[in-house]
C-alpha cells in the first residue's frame, strides 16, 4: 500500500473535537506501578520502563458512545436496581464538571461508576464480605457529560469495608469511576473519596499517590448549596483528563 492512500498522521481527522495531539501524560501526578504498601501491586508492576512515544492517529482518536445506550435511570443508583423499594443508605448527589488540562469542557463523554452498598458490600460474584447485600442496590451507574462537561449521579454513600493487605486494612468510602474523553490516550479510571472521612489518611491505596495534593484531588467536597433540602446531600467532584495541544503549524506527513 502506498503511503499517500493512508489517512494523515498526527491528529485524528474524524469529526469535531479532534484537534492536535493529546498532551504527554505527566506521570509525576500518578502512582508508580510498584507501590509495596499496596501489596497486590508488587507482582503486578512492570519492572521495565514504559516505552514513551508521541501519540499516533489511533491514540489521538477514541471510541464514541451514544447517549442512546443509556436507560433512563442509569445515573440514579437509588432507583436503578430497585426491586421492592429504594436503596438503603445516606442519600447523596455526586456532581461536577469534566475538563481537560487546558480547561476545555469534555463534552458528551461516557462516565461509568461502581461502588459498594451502604454496608460496604459489593454486588459481585467474588465479594464475600459479611455485610448484607441490599436487594434494591446494584452499585452500577452511567451517564454522559453534557455540552458544558457537567455530570451528576444520585446514589447512597458507600460503606467502608475491610480488605487483606496488612491484615484488615479498611477502605474509606469510595466510588470508582471511569472516563473515556474523546481520545484513547485520555482514558482514566480512578476512585472518588469523601471529605472528612477519617479513613482517607489511612488508606494504603490512596497512599500510592505521590503527594497530599494528588490525594486531595480525589476527595469530593461537601456542597451544602447544591444539597437537596430534606432529600440528599451533595458532593462536588471535578475531573480533569489530558488535554490536546493546539495545532499552530501543520507539518504535512511525507507524500502529501
Amino acid at each position, binding site marked *: 500500500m502506498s503511503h499517500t492512500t493512508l489517512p494523515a498522521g498526527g491528529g485524528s481527522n474524524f469529526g469535531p473535537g479532534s484537534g492536535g495531539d493529546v498532551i504527554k501524560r505527566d506521570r509525576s501526578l500518578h502512582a508508580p506501578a510498584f507501590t509495596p504498601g499496596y501489596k497486590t501491586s508488587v507482582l503486578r*508492576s512492570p519492572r521495565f520502563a514504559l516505552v514513551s512515544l508521541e501519540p499516533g492517529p489511533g491514540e489521538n482518536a477514541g471510541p464514541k458512545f451514544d447517549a442512546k445506550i443509556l436507560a433512563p435511570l442509569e445515573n440514579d443508583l437509588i432507583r436503578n436496581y430497585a426491586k421492592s423499594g429504594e436503596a438503603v443508605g445516606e442519600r447523596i448527589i455526586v456532581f461536577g464538571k469534566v475538563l481537560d488540562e487546558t480547561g476545555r469542557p469534555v463534552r458528551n463523554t461516557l462516565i461509568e461508576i461502581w461502588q459498594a452498598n451502604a454496608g460496604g458490600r459489593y454486588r459481585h460474584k467474588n465479594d464475600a464480605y459479611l455485610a448484607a447485600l441490599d436487594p434494591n442496590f*446494584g452499585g452500577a451507574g452511567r451517564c454522559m457529560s453534557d455540552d458544558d462537561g457537567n455530570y451528576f449521579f444520585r446514589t447512597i454513600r458507600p460503606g467502608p469495608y475491610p480488605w487483606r493487605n496488612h491484615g484488615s486494612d479498611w477502605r474509606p468510602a469510595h466510588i470508582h469511576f471511569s472516563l473515556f474523553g474523546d481520545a484513547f490516550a485520555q482514558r482514566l479510571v480512578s476512585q472518588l473519596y469523601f471529605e472528612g472521612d477519617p479513613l482517607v489518611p489511612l488508606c494504603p491505596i490512596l497512599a500510592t499517590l505521590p503527594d497530599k495534593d494528588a490525594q486531595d484531588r480525589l476527595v469530593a467536597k461537601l456542597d451544602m448549596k447544591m444539597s437537596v433540602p430534606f432529600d440528599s446531600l451533595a458532593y462536588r467532584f471535578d475531573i480533569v483528563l489530558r488535554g490536546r495541544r493546539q495545532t499552530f503549524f501543520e507539518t504535512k506527513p511525507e507524500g502529501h
Partner: protein
Amino acid sequence: MPIEYLKETPSQTGGPYVHIGTMPAFAGLEIRQDEQQHVIPGPGERVKLVGVVWDGSGHPVRDAMLELWQADSAGRHNAPDFSGWGRAAASSETGEWEFDTIRPGTVAWRDGKPQAPHVSLLIFARGINIHLHTRLYFPEDEAALAADPVLRAVEQTGRRATLVAQRVEGGEVPTYRFDIRLQGEGETVFFDM
C-alpha cells in the same frame, strides 16, 4: 515559573470489582445481560484474540479487565459501521480472556508511513495503579512488523516479540494467542503514549 495547567486527575486501580461498573452482567448484576462487549461486529475478516495476563510469579491475573481499540479493515478509526472498541473480562477460573473482532487494516503513523496492523489493549486489574497500555501485532505481517515505527521505538530488539501474537492452529476463524506478562521473564512492552 512555567504556565500552570489543570492537573490530570490521578488514576487509581479499578480494583477486583471493576466489572460491576463496566461489565455488570459478568459481575452478576441482573442488568444489561445481552451485552457482548468482547464481540466487535463489523465488516471484514473475523479473527479471535485470546490470552492470559500473567503476574510476576507466573500466576494468571483472574480479575483483569481488558479494553481493545483498533481501526477497521480499511485502517479507519470511528468508521460508521465499526466501533473499533471492546471489553473482555479474564475468566475468574483460568484468567483467559477473548476478543472476537475483525482483522485491522493499516493506519499511518505520524510521519505518514504505515504501521503494521495491530490492536491496542489496555489492562485494568487490582494492583495496577494506572492502566497498562500495550499492542497486539499479527505474526504474518513480517515486512510490516520490521518497518513498524512503534516496534522500532523499542530499543531492546529482543523485547519486540512480546508484542506479536502467535497464530493458533484450528478454530473456525483465524485465532491468535497473546499472553501478557506484567513482570519478570518475557515482560511485555507497555507504552506511555
